[in-house]
C-alpha cells in the first residue's frame, strides 16, 4: 500500500453532523482548547491531526461528553449535534453516548465473553426484544466490525483472550452495536501492528457509508489514507480544516506545512 496515497476525494457535500462554535476547554486553570469553530459532516471520515498535547483528543472527548468524568474539566462554547446543543441541561450524557460511540486508544474489552462485550450496550439500552433479537444484533455488529468470521465459533470465550487487533475490532463492534450515528476513534491503531492497522483502516472506510467517523491519529499517513476531511490542531487552536487532499498537498497555514513536512511535532 502506498502510504501517502490520498483517498479519492468526493467533493459532494454532506449534512453537517457536529458543529462547534467558540469551544474552550479548561483543565483547572489550564486552557487546553482555545476557541475552536468547526463543522463536521455526516458520512465522512474526519481526521484530527497535530503534535502531542495539541488538544485533539480533548476536543474529541468533548463530542460525547467524556470529559464530564474529569472533575476539574470545564467546557464553554456551543457544540451541537444535528442542531441540538449537547451541553444543554436537558441532554443526558448517557443518551448522547448511545448516539455517539467511541473507540479508545488501547483496546479495552470488558473482561467478559465476546458475546457479552457486544451485547452489553444493546442490553442496557433495551434495544433487543428477546434473545434471538439480541443474537442478531451481536452478529450484525461483529460482522460490521469485520471480526465475525474469526470469533463466530467462540462467542462465549473471554474477549480479553483475543489478539490486540482482534480486541480493537471487537471494541469497534461493541461501539457500533448500539447503532450510533457518530463514531469517535481516539488513535485506534496506536497499539496495533501494521496488519491489524490495515484491517481497522479498511473497516473505517466501510463504516463511512453509515456513520460520521471522527478519528484522532498521530500518523499523517493514516489521516491521508482514511479521511476525507482533516483538521490540524496546534497548541489548542484549530489551525486548518479542510479537504484532506488540500491539507496534505496545499496547506494554507505555515504551521500545517511545517507539521506535515515533519518540522514540528
Amino acid at each position: 500500500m502506498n502510504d501517502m496515497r490520498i483517498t479519492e476525494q468526493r467533493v459532494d457535500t454532506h449534512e453537517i453532523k457536529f458543529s462547534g462554535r467558540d469551544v474552550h476547554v479548561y483543565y483547572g486553570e489550564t486552557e487546553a482548547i482555545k476557541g475552536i469553530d468547526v463543522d463536521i459532516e455526516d458520512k465522512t471520515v474526519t481526521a484530527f491531526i497535530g503534535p502531542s498535547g495539541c488538544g485533539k483528543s480533548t476536543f474529541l472527548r468533548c463530542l460525547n461528553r467524556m470529559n464530564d468524568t474529569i472533575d476539574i474539566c470545564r467546557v464553554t462554547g456551543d457544540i451541537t449535534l444535528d442542531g441540538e446543543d449537547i451541553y444543554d441541561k436537558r441532554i443526558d450524557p448517557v443518551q448522547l453516548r448511545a448516539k455517539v460511540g467511541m473507540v479508545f486508544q488501547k483496546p479495552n474489552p470488558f473482561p467478559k465473553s465476546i458475546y457479552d462485550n457486544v451485547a452489553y450496550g444493546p442490553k442496557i439500552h433495551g434495544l433487543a426484544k428477546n434473545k434471538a433479537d439480541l443474537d442478531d444484533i451481536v452478529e450484525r455488529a461483529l460482522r460490521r466490525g469485520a471480526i465475525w468470521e474469526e470469533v463466530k465459533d467462540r462467542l462465549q470465550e473471554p474477549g480479553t483472550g483475543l489478539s490486540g487487533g482482534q480486541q480493537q475490532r471487537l471494541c469497534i463492534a461493541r461501539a457500533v452495536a448500539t447503532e450510533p450515528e457518530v463514531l469517535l476513534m481516539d488513535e485506534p491503531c496506536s497499539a496495533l501492528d501494521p496488519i491489524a492497522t490495515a484491517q481497522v483502516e479498511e473497516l473505517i472506510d466501510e463504516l463511512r457509508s453509515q456513520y460520521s467517523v471522527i478519528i484522532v491519529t498521530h500518523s499523517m499517513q493514516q489521516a491521508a489514507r482514511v479521511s476525507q476531511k482533516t483538521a490540524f490542531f496546534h497548541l489548542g487552536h484549530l489551525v486548518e480544516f479542510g479537504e484532506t487532499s488540500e491539507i496534505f498537498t496545499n496547506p494554507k497555514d505555515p504551521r500545517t506545512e511545517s507539521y506535515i513536512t515533519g518540522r514540528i511535532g
Partner: protein
Amino acid sequence: MTDLTTDNAGPGPRNLTTEAVKNSLGRRNRKQLYLQGLGIAAITFALTMLFILIWSLVSTGHHAFTQTHVTLDVYVDPEEISEENLPRGGFSEVLLASMAQQFPDIDVSDRAEARKLSSILSDGAQFQLRDRVVSDPSLIGQTVSLTVPLSDPYDQLNKNLVRRDTPENRRRVDDAAIARFDQLADRGMISTPLNFTLLTAADSRFPELAGLRGALVGSFWALLTCFLISFPLGIGAAVYLEEFAPKSRVSDFIEININNLAAVPSVVFGLLALAVFIGWFGMPRSAPFVGGLTLALMTMPTIIIATRAALKAVPPSIREAALGVGASKHQVVFQHVLPLAMPGILTGTIIGLAQALGETAPLLLIGMNAFITSAPSGPFDSATALPTQIFIWADSPERGFVSRTSAAILVLLGFLIFMNAIAIFLRSKFERKW
C-alpha cells in the same frame, strides 16, 4: 570531578565515564551486598521468632490434645440408684465403691480416706455414668465398663508434668497417690486417648472437662454478626466515597477520619460498645451479637479502606469502555467496577475478619469473658469467644489450664491461618491481568 574539566590531553570523555563507573562499581556492589545481608538477617530473625513462638505453643499445648482416662468396672448398685429417682441417684457413691474394689487397703468409711480415692477420678465421671444410665435404665443392677477422665493432678502425673523426683511437700500429688496411680497403670486400666472434650465441651472449672465449644460457637456468631454488618455497610460507604461523593472538604474530612478510625485502639471500641449498645440500648451483656456489633465497628474501616483501594485499582479503561457505550454511572459501578474489585474487597474483608477473630480487649469490656459452662444456642445467649477463652484459661490457677491455654491458642492460630489461606486463594484465583 576535576579530571573531567582538565585539558583534552587525557583520554576522551567516554573513557572518563568508563573509568568513573569502574571506580564506583566496587562501592556500589558492596552497598548492594550490605543491603541484601541486612534483609536476610531480618528475615532470619523473624523466622526464628516465629519458630520459637510456635515451638513453645506446641510443646506446652500438645499435652492438652490427649487426656488420661481410667477404665473401671462399675456395678450400678440398685440400692444407690433407683429407676424412679434417676437424676438424684448416688452415682458418686457407686463410683467410689468400684474404686474401693481396686484398693481394698483403704477404708472408705473414713471420709478423708474416701476423698483420696474419689479425687483420682474427674468430677465429670459421675455425670458420665449418670448420662449412660439415664439413656439405658436397664443397666441398673448390672456391671458396666466405664472409661472416665482422671482428675487434673493425675492427668499431669501421667503426662510426666509432675516430676516424681521433686520433694513430696512441693508436689501436688503425694507419694501414696503416685503409688495408687502406678497400681492402676500396672493393671492396664490407664489410657491416654485423644482429648475430643477440648473441642466438644464448653468451659468448666475442671481442666479435664473444659473445652472450647462455647468459645467456638460464640466466636462464630460474633463473626457472622460482624460480617453481616460491616461487609455491606463498608462496601456501601467505600463505593459512595470513591465513586459518587463530590470531592470537597467534607469528603476529605470523612476520609481522614475513616483512616483514623482504623487506627483507634480496640479497647476504645469496647468502651463505646459498653456505653452505647449495653448502656443506652440495653442489649444483653456477654452476647455474641453485641460482640459482633463491636467488632463490626473495628472491621468496617478496614473494609472501607480495602474496598476503596480495590476500586481504585480497576483500570480507568474499563470505566471509559462502559461509559463509551452509554452506561450510566451506577451501571458502570455496579456492573463493571464492583465485580472486578470483588477479589480485592473479599481479601480485605477476610483479613479484617481474621483481625476481629483475634480481638480480645473490646470483648472483655462487654463481658464476653464470663464463666459460662454451656455453648450458646443463638447470638443473644451469653458466650465467650476464642480470644477471651484464652484470656480466662490463662488466668486460671489449675495446672491443666496451662497446656489448654496453649492448645486454645493453637486452635485460634489454626483458624487465622485458614482464613488467610482463603484470602490468598481468592486473590490468586480471581486476580486479573489487564
